[in-house]
Structures are given as C-alpha cells and as structure tokens.
C-alpha cells in the first residue's frame, strides 16, 4: 500500500497522504492506507463478502471524508474489513457523486493483526489537491 504517514500534524492521532492519477485511484489508495494503518497484515483480508454504498458531496475533500468514514463505520457496525472493489466518481449538478462496491471479510482477531483502531475521519488539515502529476489527499484519523 502506497501512503505516507505525516509527522507534525497530529501528536495524538495519525495523519496520512496518498496519491492517484485520478480521483478513483486516489480514493482507492486512501481506503487501502486506512486498512494498512489499522492492521499489520492487510494482505490477509479475504474477499468473502461485498456490499455497496454511495455518497455525495459538494467537493472532493468532503467526498473523500465521507468515503473513508464509511469504511470506519462498517468496521464497527458489521465488524467488516473492506477494500473498494469497484469505484465510480462522477460530477453532476454541482455535486460529486460516488458509488462503491467494497469487498472483504469479518474481523478475525486470530488472523488480522491490529496495530491501531481508527475511530473517526477528521476534517483537521483535510485536503485533496491536484497538480501536474495527478491528485493527492491528506487526512487525519482519530485513533
């Protein structure tokens, strides 16, 4: 998983940055980083179940925040560790719209080695930016 932990933004929690050529790549990298920060062996998460969800927001930053929040929610509500399987992001009527099919499996404490529990996405220093090389996103997660 390609991500960078950012020092100096949060002492009590974790800030990380991901990159992507387009928003789909960027968001997929974000969900991958979320899982890789939580568990030390993300490669052990099997695709045993899948679900779909959608979100919409006025800008890419809030869409990214909502998207990651969904994975955090499912981790507690259904005890599922998930990664995006199919992701679409469009813009229409002034809103960014996202639909995602995510797959994964229930937490297995015997197999999945947790480093930390991520309990919330935050808007602290939240940013999604674009330059000549593509997109990058920074977020702080509460642990």
């Amino acid at each position, binding site marked *: 998983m390609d991500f960078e*932990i950012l*020092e*100096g933004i*949060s*002492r*009590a*929690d*974790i800030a990380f940055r991901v990159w992507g050529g387009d928003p789909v790549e960027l968001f997929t990298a974000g969900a991958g980083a979320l899982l890789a920060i*939580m568990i*030390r062996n993300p490669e052990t998460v099997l695709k045993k179940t899948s679900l779909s969800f959608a979100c919409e927001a006025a800008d890419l930053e809030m869409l990214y925040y909502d998207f990651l*929040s969904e994975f955090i*929610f499912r*981790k*507690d*509500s*259904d*005890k599922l560790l998930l990664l995006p399987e199919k992701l679409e992001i469009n813009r229409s009527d002034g809103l960014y719209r996202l639909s995602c099919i995510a797959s994964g499996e229930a*937490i297995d*404490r015997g197999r*999945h080695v*947790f*480093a*930390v*529990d991520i*309990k*919330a*996405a*935050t*808007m*602290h220093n*939240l940013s999604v930016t674009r330059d000549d090389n593509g997109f990058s996103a920074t977020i*702080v997660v*509460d*642990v």
Partner: protein
Amino acid sequence: MKTSSINKIHDYLYEIPVSFKHGMRVPARIYASLQLIENMDNAVLDQLTNVCLLPGILKHALCMPDGHSGYGFPIGGVAAIDPDTGVISPGGIGFDINCGVRLMATSLTFDEVKPRLKTLVQALFNQVPSGVGSDGMVRLKPDDFDEAMILGARWAIQNGYGSPTDLDFIEENGCMKGADPRAVSDRARARGKDQAGSLGSGNHYLEIQVVKEKNIFDKKIAEQFGIVRDGQIMVMIHSGSRGFGHQIATDYLKRFLSVMGSKYGLSLPDRELACAPFYSDDGQNYYRAMNCAINYAFLNRQMMMHSVKNILCDIFKKSPEELGLRLVYDVCHNTAKLERHAIDGKEKEILIHRKGATRAFAPGMEGIPDRYRSTGQPVLIGGSMETGSYLLAGIPSGAEAFYSTCHGSGRVMSRHRAKSTFNGRELQKHLEEQGIIILTSSFPGLAEEAGGAYKNVDEVIQATEQGGLSRAVAKLLPIGNIKG
C-alpha cells in the same frame, strides 16, 4: 510553542491578548509552566485562540497544563459559553464523548496481590473485552439501547452490573439528564449496539495500581477518598463511549457544517470548530445526543468495573465487602455541561465545554457526594502506564478556571514517532523487569503509549497545583495494566 505573543500573569498562568488574532472575543489563558508551554505544539496557540472566536464565549478560553493540539479545540481546552447567546461545538467536546476515568479502592495490599499479579492481569485481559473487533459484555436490543442511553450507569445497575450506592460516586450520578435517543442516528446505534462493556483501544486501559505512603500528599483527604494504608491496591479504568460517541460527533459535525453558515450565519476558520446556537434545534439535538453518549460511557465503565470486582472476588476467594471494593469516583473529561458559575460576581448558568479537561468542584459545592463535601471533588488523572497516575481534589481557586483541571499527562511525541522509537515487546519485557505486568492485543499500540511519548506527569501536576486548579492528594503507581 513559540512564546513571543504570550504575557505572563504568574509562573503558571500565561495570557494571549485579544490583539493576537482578529475577531477574538476574549483573551486565551494557558495554565502551565513556561517549559510546558514551550513543549506544546504550535497548533495549540492557533486552536486555542480560534476558540476565542466562538459566539457567546465568556471571560477566557483556557488550556490546561497537559494541553496539546486536537481538532478544533486543543486537547486540554475549556470554554465557558453563554447558552442564551452562544454556541455548542462538537469540537469542544471531542470525538470520544465522556471519555473518562474511574477509580476503585480495595483493602488488598501489594504484598497480598504480588504473588497472584500475573494471574490477575491475565484474568482481566481474558474477561474484560478490549481491542478492535471485540464484543462488549452485552448486545443492546433497540428498546434496551434507548433505555440505556437515558439511564446511563443506572441502566447497568438495574441489569445486575454493580450496586445502587455506586451511583453516588459517579459524576452526575452516572446519568445525564436531557438525553434523548430520538436525536441519535441509526449509524451511531449500529456502532454502539455491540460495544457496551468494552475497553476499546488507543490510550484506554485498565490498571492495577499501588499507593505508597511516600506518595500520599494529603493524608486526611486521602483517607476520605478511601486510601488508608501503605501498599494499598487501587483499580483505574480509562475508557469512553466507544464507536457510539464517535459516530454522534461525526454526525453532528457534518450537520453543523452544512447549516452553520446558511441557517445561522456563523463562520469560523476551522471546520472542526463547526457549531450551532445552543438553543437552536440543531444545537439542542446535538446536546440531547451527546448526553446519550455521556450516559453510554458511564454504563460502559460501570459494567467493566463490575467485571473487575467479580474477577478479584474469584481470585482472592473473598466477597466484595471483605476485599473493601468501593468506587472512589468516576470523572468525565470530554463533555459540555450546563453549570452555575459566578461571572463577574453574578451567578449564571453557563455551558462549559471541557475537552481533555476534568471538572474539579471545590469543597462545599453542589454536585459532589456528601462524603466528599468537605474535601472537594476527587479528580482522576490518568498518566502513562510507566509513570503513574494522580488523585487530586478540587479547590476554591479553581473558580478562575470554571472549576476545571487537567486530565492526563499529554503527549509530547506523535504515535508514529513513538512506534519507531519504542518496541512494544521490548517495552513489555522492560516493564515486567520493573514489576509492571502489561498485556495488550496490539504491541504496536503498546509502543505508541510508552511513557516516553508523554509529558512528565509530575511536571503537569506541579503546574496544576501551582496554577491553583486542584490539589494533589496521592500518586498511584502501576503494577498491572491491560490495553486494547
């Protein structure tokens, strides 16, 4: 933190004037030594002065000696808001609503516990749910969940977790009025339904502690709090409202962001400071939901303490009475509450946001148990698992800080840096050599919580006392700890 913009009031109190930032309605104050302030991260200054921009803020925005940067408010932040003209802000309470600390006294001594310490810590680790993905002690069905949100620790006691006398020794008697489950989303319910009676992870812990005579600083108050002998064993729990509280904070942060400008004409420089007028529909809905989360955290700690009691009775083959098991107190450190305080000599109801700050009522005040009426409210300060924790008492001079004090030792090192500096397994071994048995479901998580990642708790307590926030009663040293 750069200190060039800060004016000294005395050695443990510093002020940032309203001229520091455009729009500040009141000055900001930091209770700390200059050295502690220099070790705070720069964002504390920006976040604390942002709090001074909130509509309705009274007197000063405050930062406690253990302060460090958070989201919106700094951790260790206190704001008194006029509820009639001002706002409520989830960022002033924190994601883990009613994260707090509870302390139980025992009549056991270190000599009695030492031979069975490993067995005890192992039993606690096996039987008190902790770590990610663990189920709590009970699965809450929808009707039960509604009742639990309203009743808090009372619900736990009604369902067999503890005795009614425990309620006397919990802040707000373990039950915040004004909790309304109708203000709680289905998503928050979904996250909370399986987590009642579980420790969680991160900096949450259950700790076996010992009091040494040399660490009792006020013998008379300590006796009133239940500390009566050298080597006495105490049990401390640090936990909160789990995913339930986090989801309520997330839900309302988003809601406030969507309406604060369009509906209420409010604008603030940080999205994490999103707020709504306290007496608006949005403000009241958050307040009702937040009170549900406060109650959830009360029942959570109540259930875990009951489990600890059963484990102690089982291991030592004695009754709770024979083991002298008695709840000393249970404090919140992430809340907003309506309290009566004197503002410029006139008593008034105000909304006190305390984020990583503990209420510390002085002797004689309403709202503290009769047993502690002459001593002041017990205040529980959770330190790191290496350095120890403190038991304090509220004092009259705390009025200057709306009877608020510190909550812990405060981080000086990021989690990432701590993980690359310390090794969890080596730390566990090192601490065992010092007589501290630690069990964890996450060794990287253990490394993040190493004593070296935190401020020196003794310095924080010194600043707390010298700043007039509260009085040190005793220091509690860890001998056993379970972490999620």
